[in-house]
């Protein structure tokens, strides 16, 4: 129960295609994030799942049942809106009770369930207030309560934390993880905040301009991004990317550009012919202080527990994560190295990930 399947789902608004041929299979009880920049179609996807938008093509199934023609209220999903969408003329208690009222739950049971939910969300003292008499965090909890009270097959959450301040957001993140563990239902969580997606999800669906880029667990998304779009979107500071040429060499291939030569090997052997590639390396895999390469420091940003260093080498810009006690200053020359085992190789033309990995130490060009 509660599994969700999108099959070749497409949504067009006039000539503008907001979601393109989406295939997505979400397991029952899974916590899945839809992650992507603003306007990439996350909300549209969620609204189609809730039945608030009708797909232009394709089918959506919930719990094994195709729901394309099922009204939103009959899909047994609960939704938390980015705006919370609390009913302004109803009290907190009436807001939370509303879905039960629509299900025809008897008054006594309704009140008991509302009280139970209010208890878990610490809303007990606020039941008689109107939404506009609440703080943002309290409103958010009421919205959550209205979803929880129904015990639906799946929870759909559209950026529920985006209106909260940083501290409350961190707190609610933990609460939501805990909540998911406790109710064990399917969660589909829309966010453009990679930290939220990385910390909370079983799997992340990264979207860009209406196209699903990658659907995988957070670790895989981070360590093996499917393409340059995902690589650039996930991780902060973003992955360093440089152009390079792939040339065949004894026992594999070598990536070379004006800065470096990096031996590469394909797991199955055979690196393919010579071509243009993009070479990526995460800031934490840039090692400052020693190595065959050298760069000129531009900016040093100490954050407390680490130092972000921006520098230039052979005309390319790099960002490195260095230790908190990093002592270089702008203008100085610094030697550096790259963790060759953690190089990412992408096709220069398509941006797709190439199954190549570093096979030995990096040397200067």
């Amino acid at each position, binding site marked *: 129960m509660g599994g969700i399947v999108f099959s070749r789902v497409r949504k067009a608004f006039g000539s503008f295609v907001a979601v393109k041929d989406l295939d997505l299979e979400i397991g029952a009880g899974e916590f899945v994030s839809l992650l992507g920049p603003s306007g990439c179609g996350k909300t549209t996807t969620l609204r189609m799942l809730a039945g608030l938008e009708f797909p232009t093509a394709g089918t959506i199934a919930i719990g094994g049942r195709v729901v394309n023609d099922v*009204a939103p209220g009959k899909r047994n999903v609960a939704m938390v809106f980015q705006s919370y969408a609390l*009913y*302004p003329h109803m009290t907190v208690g009436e807001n939370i009770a*509303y879905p039960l009222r629509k299900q025809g739950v008897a008054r006594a049971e309704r009140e008991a369930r509302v009280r139970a939910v209010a208890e878990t969300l610490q809303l007990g003292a606020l039941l008689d207030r109107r939404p*506009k008499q609440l703080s943002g965090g309290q409103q958010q909890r009421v919205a959550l309560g209205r979803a929880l009270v129904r015990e639906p097959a799946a929870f759909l959450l559209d950026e529920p934390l985006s209106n909260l301040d940083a501290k409350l957001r961190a707190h609610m993140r933990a609460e939501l993880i805990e909540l998911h563990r406790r109710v064990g239902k399917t969660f589909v969580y829309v966010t453009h905040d990679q930290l939220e997606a990385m910390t909370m999800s079983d799997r992340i669906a990264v979207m860009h301009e209406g196209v699903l880029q990658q659907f995988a667990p957070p670790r895989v998304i981070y360590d093996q991004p499917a393409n340059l779009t995902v690589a650039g979107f996930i991780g902060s500071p973003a992955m360093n990317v440089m152009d390079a040429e792939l040339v065949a060499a004894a026992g594999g291939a070598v990536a070379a550009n004006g800065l470096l030569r990096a031996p590469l090997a394909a797991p199955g052997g055979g690196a393919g012919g010579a071509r243009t590639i993009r070479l990526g390396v995460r800031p934490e895999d840039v090692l400052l202080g020693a190595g065959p390469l050298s760069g000129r420091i531009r900016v040093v940003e100490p954050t407390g527990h680490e130092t972000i260093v921006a520098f230039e080498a052979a005309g390319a810009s790099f960002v490195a994560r260095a230790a908190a006690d990093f002592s270089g200053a702008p203008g100085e020359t610094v030697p550096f190295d790259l963790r060759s085992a953690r190089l990412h190789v992408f096709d220069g033309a398509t941006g797709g990930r190439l199954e190549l990995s570093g096979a030995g130490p990096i040397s200067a060009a």
Partner: protein
Amino acid sequence: MPRLLRRILFNLFAWGVVLLVAFPLFWMIITSVKPQSELFRIPPTVWPETVTFEHYWRLIDETPFLVYMRNSLVLSFSTTFLVVVVATLGAHSLVRFRYPGRERIAQLVLFTYLLPSVVLILPLYLLMVWIGVANTIFSLVIAYTTFALPYALWLLRSFMQGIPDDLESAALVDGATRMEAFVDVILPQALPGIISTTIFTFILSWNEYLYALVLVNTDLARPLTTGVMTMLLGAFNIEWSLLMAAAVMMCVPLIILFAFLQSYLTRGFGAGGVKG
């Protein structure tokens, strides 16, 4: 100092305007309770020497005033009910549903509102005769609806555009049907707009004169506006006291309606359930 002066001047001006507006009303009430003999005395008496309600009794006893009053009430309530119901549903449709020509319809509605209502009188009259409802209150209800509805639609449309889409979406996901979402969520939010529209439409139909004059010529269906005129035109000399008494009584339903609806308007059904 100039600030104080400006405030004094502003206050004087404001009170001047109030007096200008209020004096005729005051005079109307005063005149309605003066005996006929006191009316044309020079200089006029501001406070009547004798207060009499004989004009009110004569209106009720000797003239069809009460019939006109009943007609006006039936006419205005029916028109208001029809217009508000249709405009509320129509505005909701114009705001929420996506269908071809939606914007065009909205523009067309505005256009009909811009049309001077005089040009529609003859076609409407012929139409009423043709469908056999000429000379009835019903024909006036239809006629008034034709010019009250476009404006009501526009008024309510702008009100409903201010209601966040998410509220209705939330109700739908929570298990409401479209109609239930409309009744449970949209209506309460649109209430201030609906009340404004109600007041507007009621006043419009209560005071309308031209259509009533052309479309109806029997006492059985005549509303107050034309009724009182006919009453007075029939007499050789205009009985001002009678006219003023009629005018005072014509104001009463409007005042009651205002007093009743005003409390709803100011009770504060503001938005605020939606952030961001």
